[in-house]
């Protein structure tokens, strides 16, 4: 009979030592340590490069310019310059003003031209030629979906700019893509109760919808939420994206039996269709014994400026507004306003926040590895960034936060004072099941 050297105590000791040894990397160094490399554009040297992909030409160039201002401000704050802006109010304390993970932040810019092909080309160039570790920006859902897919393939994190379609974090969501901006569903959910309270629950709506991805999801969201409270949809007409004069679409509205016109338009489309609607007297008209009403589901201050006095009294929703009085918003408006002389747009706000969130995630993860950053962002809850308590939901990489219902101001005191906040809709009211829009997040791709 042979005697075994294995004892129960010995086995436990060996097991404990082996366990400690195996877990050492996670205990003493971050999971995605840069030393592992194995991801695209791992920064070497003392700098890290971010890629700001914004419309610098084309119809959204002004919005793109505002996004770029916000990015430059964010980089300044990350590198320890300026007054720190929202870094002082951000609930996470990981950012120290010494760049990201001790590396000075530099940036390159690309021009999306608000065209998916051009946006992909500029993002590709920034990734391949300039070594950008993260791509962010844009003013269109078509661009966001296209660039997000590219970043997924390249193993780069995409922090979306202004994109409002459900698809970005719905059917087209990607593991490497993250959206802070709200979406069409949230607009519908936030607007419906206010519309019901102000215009009643017996209304007949006529939708004019931009004939592309964002228009469809916005129409669907507003229809679903308004029909649920009793409104009837009389007609929904698709309008070409290139349409400039909407007279042919607006002229028959009064004859349709509708008493509400919903303009699922953004940018130049919104400016022109709203102008046509006001010119055709819809704002003063009566139908079905009620005052005729116009609704613009997605407002932007820059677009409201283009529409001028036509926005007065018209309800819509927005992601953020400079007149908010929380500490985060005040800090951002002060930083931005002092540097540039005017208040930031909602596009600027979301871009600034996305940059800080990316940097913060890198600090918390201790790496630039996109999978480490994705893990740090998933399920991350934060505050102090202008929208109240916010959750970056892990299931679809969509931020859930308060949504603003706004109205065109009757008596603006300045060229910036165009919208007034009617209600701050709590995040819980605009939260939905992640599965309703389909899509598959897939798995994070670190690239390389």
């Amino acid at each position, binding site marked *: 009979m042979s005697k075994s050297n294995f004892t129960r105590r010995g086995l436990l000791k060996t097991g404990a030592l082996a366990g400690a040894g195996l877990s050492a990397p996670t205990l003493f160094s971050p999971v995605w340590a840069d030393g592992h490399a194995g991801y695209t554009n791992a920064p070497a040297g003392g700098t890290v490069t971010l890629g700001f992909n914004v419309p610098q*030409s*084309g*119809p*959204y*160039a*002004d*919005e793109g310019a505002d996004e770029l201002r916000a990015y430059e401000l964010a980089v300044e704050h990350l590198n320890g310059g300026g007054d720190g802006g929202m870094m002082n109010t951000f609930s996470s304390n990981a950012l120290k003003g010494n760049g990201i993970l001790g590396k000075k932040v530099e940036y390159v810019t690309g021009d999306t031209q608000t065209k998916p092909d051009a946006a992909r080309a500029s993002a590709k160039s920034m990734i391949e030629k300039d070594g950008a570790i993260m791509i962010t920006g844009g003013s269109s859902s078509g661009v966001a979906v296209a660039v997000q897919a590219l970043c997924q393939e390249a193993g780069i994190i995409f922090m979306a700019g202004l994109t409002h379609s459900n698809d970005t974090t719905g059917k087209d969501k990607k593991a490497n893509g993250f959206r802070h901006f709200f979406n069409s569903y949230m607009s519908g959910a936030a607007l419906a109760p206010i519309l019901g309270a102000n215009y009643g629950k017996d209304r007949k709506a006529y939708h004019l919808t931009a004939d592309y991805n964002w228009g469809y999801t916005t129409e669907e969201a507003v229809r679903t939420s308004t029909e649920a409270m009793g409104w009837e949809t009389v*007609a929904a*007409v*698709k309008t*070409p994206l*290139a349409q*400039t*004069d909407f*007279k*042919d*679409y607006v*002229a*028959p509205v*009064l*004859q*349709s039996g509708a008493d509400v016109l919903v303009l699922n338009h953004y940018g*130049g489309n919104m*400016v*022109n269709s709203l*102008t*046509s609607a006001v*010119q*055709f*007297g819809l704002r*003063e*008209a*009566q*139908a079905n014994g009620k005052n005729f009403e116009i609704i613009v589901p997605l407002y932007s201050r*820059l*677009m409201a*400026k*283009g*529409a*001028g*006095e*036509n926005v007065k009294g018209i309800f819509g929703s927005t992601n953020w507004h*400079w*007149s908010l009085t929380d500490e985060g918003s005040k800090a951002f*408006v*002060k930083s931005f*306003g*002092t540097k540039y002389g*005017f*208040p930031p747009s909602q596009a600027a706000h979301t871009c600034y926040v996305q940059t800080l969130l990316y940097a913060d995630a890198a600090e918390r993860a201790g790496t630039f590895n996109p999978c480490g950053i994705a893990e740090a962002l998933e399920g991350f809850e934060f505050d102090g960034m202008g929208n109240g308590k916010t959750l970056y939901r892990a299931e679809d990489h969509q931020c859930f936060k308060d949504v603003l219902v706004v109205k065109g101001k009757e008596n603006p*005191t*300045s060229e*910036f*004072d165009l919208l007034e906040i009617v209600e701050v809709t709590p995040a819980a009211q605009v939260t939905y099941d992640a599965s309703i829009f389909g899509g598959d997040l897939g798995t994070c791709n670190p690239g390389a």
Partner: protein
Amino acid sequence: MEAIVLQLLSGLDGGSAYALIALGLTLIFGTLGVVNFAHGALFMIGAFCTVTLQRILTLSHTVIDDTQKDFLGNPLKVQVPYIQDWFGEATSAAIIDWSVPLAIIFAIPVMLIIGIVMERGLIKHFYKRPHADQILVTFGLAIVLQEIIKAYYGANPIPAPAPDVFKGSFDFGQLLGFEANRIIYPYWRLVYFGFATIVIASVFAFLQFTTFGMVVRAGMADRETVGLLGIDIDKRFTMMFGLAACVAGLAGVMYTPINSPNYHMGMDFLVISFVVVVVGGMGSLPGAVLAGFVLGILQSFASMREVIEVLPGINQVVIYLAAIIILLTRPRGLLGKRGVMED
């Protein structure tokens, strides 16, 4: 019936813009034989003449108002227009309110100068070059012009409202014996239609009843013979280029309350205007006007919900379909003449 009347009005309104732009294009083609792809840019520059005049009229000095705060909490800097100091609040407000009609006076010399400089500085070097060269250079010029405008005025649309007296809509239905509020049409669009009619009639009258016009028409028919008579036809044709630029510019000025001006608005009209010119008949002024209104009305009816439901997308192609049918049945267009662009 109400819907038909409404779409007819809408078609006449849209057609008047097409006709005005196509008229200028045809003038240039008929006199100089140049295919001017920068014509849409002239329409856009006209619109920005309104914006420029608005900015001139609202040139301001700053007054600090301690009782109000700006968005940063500092005392509000109130911009007070200089004309308010000169003419008083009520008069200056009225002048600013009427800036769109006033811009007509401002735009006429500006557009004349731009047209003449464009013709003398660039276009004249391409008279004897193939049409493809002319198209390339004028298209390039259009892009340069729109980028210059964007650099100065930004990419966002800039509102330029009509005078208060023209805001709101006219109830056509009641006038025609229909129920109230069934056929309403904006006052300014009716003004635009009237304005287009006056400009078109003036151009025709100028060409028909003045000696200058007679010489130009003779030059259009036989340039060499007119030249042999000792008449400097080139100088007159340069003036016609300026006139065409003026027509496009005025069309742009009056269009600003309909759609807020933006740097791209010329391109939006360019292709359709060329279709109008071709359908009307190359070089035919009455043809351009007729085709402008016909295609405007067609497009309006094709945009009816009932039509789109049966033929989705028809509103986007109806003009081109009509052009194909017309050119197949009348290869020279509606009122085109033999020999024009046929050599």
